[in-house]
């Protein structure tokens, strides 16, 4: 993983609550055994018409959307299916962060493992951002993960929460598996005292 650095960007607004991962990447694209090509399938059924042509009015097909590395979405973003294809599709398209008032648990965890930053803001800040984009579609914000700061288009700065461990992993560009593997002694010690367990290899 690459190190997650501070950046400034425009935002692509998608003012819909409860955007589920089936919308982010429809299930029929999950038959792949790789991660390649998912960016083109992002929001497929909202983004393309019945003949597969991009709908020009859909935000991420527009020049404004294309220029944005941040998606500004409604409440409870990423609910539903656990498919990690959702953050894969978002990052392959070019998004580095999603701003919302809340995120579904599994999506949030999956995003943090793929250098996609879920930024939680208050209702007030959320409204301010949508209003700013209505006035000026090219409005810019700055994201600084190290300081957990979001600088709004008017220059004011707000803090956002993030799990400290995930933050360090993103800043350093390391994934969790290496950290877990280092604890093999603790895992072995735990296994030695487990009281009960099934054996899926047993003949029944």
């Amino acid at each position, binding site marked *: 993983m690459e190190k997650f650095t501070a950046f400034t960007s425009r935002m692509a607004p998608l003012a819909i*609550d409860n955007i589920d991962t089936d919308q982010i990447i429809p299930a029929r694209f999950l038959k792949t055994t790789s991660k390649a090509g998912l960016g083109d399938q992002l929001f497929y059924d909202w983004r393309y018409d019945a003949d597969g042509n991009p709908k020009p009015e859909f935000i991420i097909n527009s020049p404004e959307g294309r220029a944005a590395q941040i998606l500004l979405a409604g409440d409870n973003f990423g609910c539903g299916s656990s498919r990690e294809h959702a953050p894969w599709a978002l990052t392959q398209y070019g998004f580095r962060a999603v701003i919302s008032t809340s995120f579904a648990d599994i999506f949030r965890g999956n995003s943090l493992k793929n250098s996609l930053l879920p930024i939680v803001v208050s209702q007030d800040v959320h409204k301010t951002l949508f209003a700013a984009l209505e006035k000026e579609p090219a409005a810019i914000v700055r994201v600084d993960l190290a300081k957990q700061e979001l600088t709004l288009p008017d220059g004011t700065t707000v803090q956002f929460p993030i799990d400290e461990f995930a933050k360090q992993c993103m800043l350093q560009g390391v994934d969790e*598996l290496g950290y877990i593997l280092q604890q093999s002694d603790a895992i072995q010690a735990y296994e030695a005292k487990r009281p009960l367990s099934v054996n*899926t290899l047993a003949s029944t």
Partner: protein
Amino acid sequence: MSQRNGAAKPRTIIEKVWDNHVVSERPGAPALLYVDLHLVHEVTSPQAFSGLRERGLKVRRPDLTIGTTDHSIPTHDRSLPILDKVAEAQINQFEKNCRDFGIPFFGPHSEKQGIVHIIGPEQGLTQPGMTVVCGDSHTATHGAFGALAFGIGTSQVEHVLATQCLLQGRSRTFEVRVEGALKPGVGAKDIILNLISRIGIGGGTGCVFEYSGSAIRSLSMEERMTICNMSIEGGARAGLVAPDETTYQYLAGRPYAPKGAAWDRALELWRQLPTDSGAEFDKRIDIDASALEPMITFGTNPGMGIPISAPVPDPSAINDPLERESLGKALRYMDLPSGKPLLGHPVNVVFIGSCTNSRISDLRAAANILRGRKVNPNVRVMVVPGSQLVKSQAQAEGLDLVFKEAGADWREAGCSMCIAMNGDQLAPGEYSVSTSNRNFEGRQGKGGRTFLASPLTAAASAVTGVVTDVRTLL
């Protein structure tokens, strides 16, 4: 581990199972949690196996791992070839991955094949007090046994394959207490759809549900699975029911359940799991089971549910602009007017299946409505058992004949039209009454429109060809 809470502090079952599985807890990091059972399927695992190969890692505990093919697999005759070559390649890759890494699996031709959340309980693999994970958000199904069971992404599938552990933050606890007796025609699906309609699909975010109360106690294991299954539709990654005699009776004698002295030892541990009296939950909601009607959804998320005789809500009555627009968007997609009930709305397809409602008791309930009746000629009805063993059991009871004589299509086991990856799907604009768990836009096929409901409501609507209150047919 339990010192953290102080020896005397009463704990919920959620905290007990958690505490029992903490491998380590270092400052500045989430807990490292041990996984007792890892269920793997073809859709969310290929990239995890690729990751293992790239890093030169093995599967740490193939003996705590089991695979099945369910999401992409066709539900037509298994002797026929798989027409979708992309799906076929994914299934073949899955079998290769399981063989290469020594993981036992139930392939397309196994008599034990089925939906991952059906086979775990059916085989006795899912047991009280366990941690169970799977790259699937409906893993909470296994919570019906008093297991802490939750869905994970593909990165975490790789972590568990490699280490049998996960980094996990502690969740808040949320008691869902359901008291009273259900009325005829009302069941487990109606309880969970009612809960979600009240708290909304983000209402349980950050929480684990414990379902408690007399109404939950009186449910069978299969009904408890239906409820736990849809915990994620209320935003909770996990939901569970404390084990009791119903649980132990269901488990006893299952293929992978403990036997003899091991059973007695297990039972002793399981009996310590239920929430201590005086334990505190972070949140709580009460539901009066006796006041419930059959539930049905009208919109594009599972929280958009109503009692079957109630009117579809009116967006103009909502103050918050984003909420109003979300409801308006849903009704436009569903092409439904607000202000009147769904009763009498034409239906094109009825789907009876999915990890929510494809167990033998679901099929019996649907068959009881369809027996001696005919499916309305305007409706296509698919009945998809959750596993090949459920299918065999249904056939032994003659349920397949009931379905076929009524004019329904009797299929092979799989996820089928719940996720519409395998060719079983709605055509654009079609309406289904479906016993599955999600009514998101396009979930059952691009442009398709889903009403979620119980197997009873689905079967009743199959007979009449319109959304129907099953109580008129009982």
